[in-house]
């Protein structure tokens, strides 16, 4: 049984069809990449899955259970954690306290929450930041804190929205390693949207491509980047190879 099933999901904002009849499945223990040019509807799809706002039509099934109508906090309690594109670092919670809030999802005990939080910080290699305020940390660290907070809630599926945005190449490499460890050592399935295609290519078992709210490709990463439809979506008509001809798409496609 797949872990997550998205069935014919559409989301309409006024006159804009942000998601148009999108369907896909995510198998248990899979890393699925979700790519597409700006405005393709990736974040909207994320928000629909996470229950952040209701879908216009379609169904979303998580672990055999229909979660279409559930609110975001209810979806989170079932085991879908998410990170935000913009992680606001305000307020008066220290790093370890932030992570504890994630751990409090399943435990009402402060000492237990603290243990879980410290373990998650350790796992992500940021124990030395535990006592700091979020705003004192560099962006790469803040993203790790967000990951630790999500991990502390013991999710089964992690939705990662642009975790590599704002990171330099070596930090991206570190992030790929970390995500791989989260997947392999914790057995957590990942759904990753990313502008940095290298990252998705390195991580994902399978990739789906959105364009203007519609799914235009679904397959393993190597196939998908050669798909003329995908190249056209990213680079325009000019670069799209004719059928049967090996075009220049592969390499350029990575840096869209």
């Amino acid at each position, binding site marked *: 049984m797949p872990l997550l099933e998205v069935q014919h999901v559409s989301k309409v904002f006024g006159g804009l069809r942000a998601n148009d009849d999108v369907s896909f499945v995510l198998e248990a223990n899979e890393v699925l990449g979700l790519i597409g040019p700006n405005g393709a509807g990736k974040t909207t799809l994320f928000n629909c899955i*996470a229950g*952040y706002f209701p879908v216009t039509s379609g169904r979303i099934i998580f672990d055999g259970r229909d979660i279409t109508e559930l*609110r*975001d*906090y*209810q979806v*989170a*309690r079932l085991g879908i*954690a*998410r990170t*935000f594109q913009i*992680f*606001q670092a*305000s*307020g*008066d*919670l220290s790093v370890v*306290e*932030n992570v*504890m*809030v*994630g751990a*409090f*999802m399943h*435990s*009402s*005990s*402060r*000492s237990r*929450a603290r243990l879980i939080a410290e373990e998650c910080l350790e796992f992500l290699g940021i124990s030395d930041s535990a006592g700091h305020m979020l705003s004192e940390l560099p962006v790469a660290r803040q993203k790790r804190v967000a990951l630790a*907070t*999500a991990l502390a*809630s013991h999710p089964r599926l992690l939705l990662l929205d642009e975790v590599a945005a704002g990171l330099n190449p070596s930090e991206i490499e570190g992030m790929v390693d970390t995500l791989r460890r989260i997947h392999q050592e914790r057995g957590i399935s990942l759904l990753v949207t990313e502008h940095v295609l290298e990252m998705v290519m390195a991580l994902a078992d399978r990739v789906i491509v959105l364009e203007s709210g519609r799914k235009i490709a679904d397959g393993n990463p190597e196939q998908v980047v050669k798909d003329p439809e995908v190249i056209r979506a990213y680079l325009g008509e000019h670069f799209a190879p004719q059928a049967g001809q090996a075009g220049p798409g592969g390499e350029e496609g990575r840096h869209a």
Partner: protein
Amino acid sequence: MEAIRNAFDFSDFPRLDLTIAGLGILFLLIFPALPHSSFAMATMIQFLMFSLYGMGWNTIGGYAGQVDLGKAKYVGIGAYTTAVLMIRWDIPFWFSMPLGMVFAILWSFVIGYPLFRLKGHYFAIATIATSLVVKDIFEVWDFVGGARGLELPLKGHFPDFLYLQFREDYYYYYIILGFFVLGVLYINAFRHSRLGYQLRAIKDNEDVARSLGIDVHWSKIKAYAVATAFVAMVGSFHACYNFAIEPEDTMSLDLSILIAMMAMLGGAGSLWGPIIGAAILVPMKSYLGSWLGGQAGLAGLDLVIYGAIIMLIAAVQPRGVWGIVEAVRARKRGSHAAA
């Protein structure tokens, strides 16, 4: 069990704070034995009452960051419950006080459910409006004495611990001091609790909080109920201490704003903030008030001063006096680490 451990866990404060707090408690314990005027005693009782109001406000206004300017109606509900139950059915304080808390909490659920659909300024304005409506109802409601209010009957013998009727003020003082100590311990447990952490996460960012499985709306309602219980408890005490209550002194907008200001001046969202705020504002209010009251043409100047304080907090340090202390400490740590 862990809640009790948390209540006594002050380990996140430096030793200096705990020494000062210890000396403060010692002073509060022996204060009635020191030479003092009856005016000073009354001021001290006011200080303890307002500290408790502020601590209650701090759960919703400080930790959860929802500026509530309508706490006074719950003072009124507590005070009126105690007064009415005693007058009509001769029920002692120790039974009417918990009942008053229950009524206030029930009302807080009714009002909190729609209220917390609002955010920011809209929420603050709505709390004022709902509070004024309750006051207006009490002013025309004959059963509770209308605008003239109620007077508590004297039981005839002193001291009466059941109905809280004493000739000497120090009885009242020690009773409210007892509530004060319990209040500090409760808030200390509260800020270490799951709800305490979740409220601070809500204040930071509601979207992130919801993504961590927190039912934001319900958490705010719970915090609002805690705040309400504190305020209603002190309201019941207020009725016994004053022997007479009226809508104007238990439910006015002035009282609501004063409660919020105590906590904000001292430091919203910190354990000591409301106490520091009350320690500054209550003596200022009573001494300034009594002095200015005697000076023709200066009455009302105290309100000008409150206004100035609000502007100062907003402009200089939104986290109040305690925020300044923490900022200075953070800077010291920073320069220490750099050295």
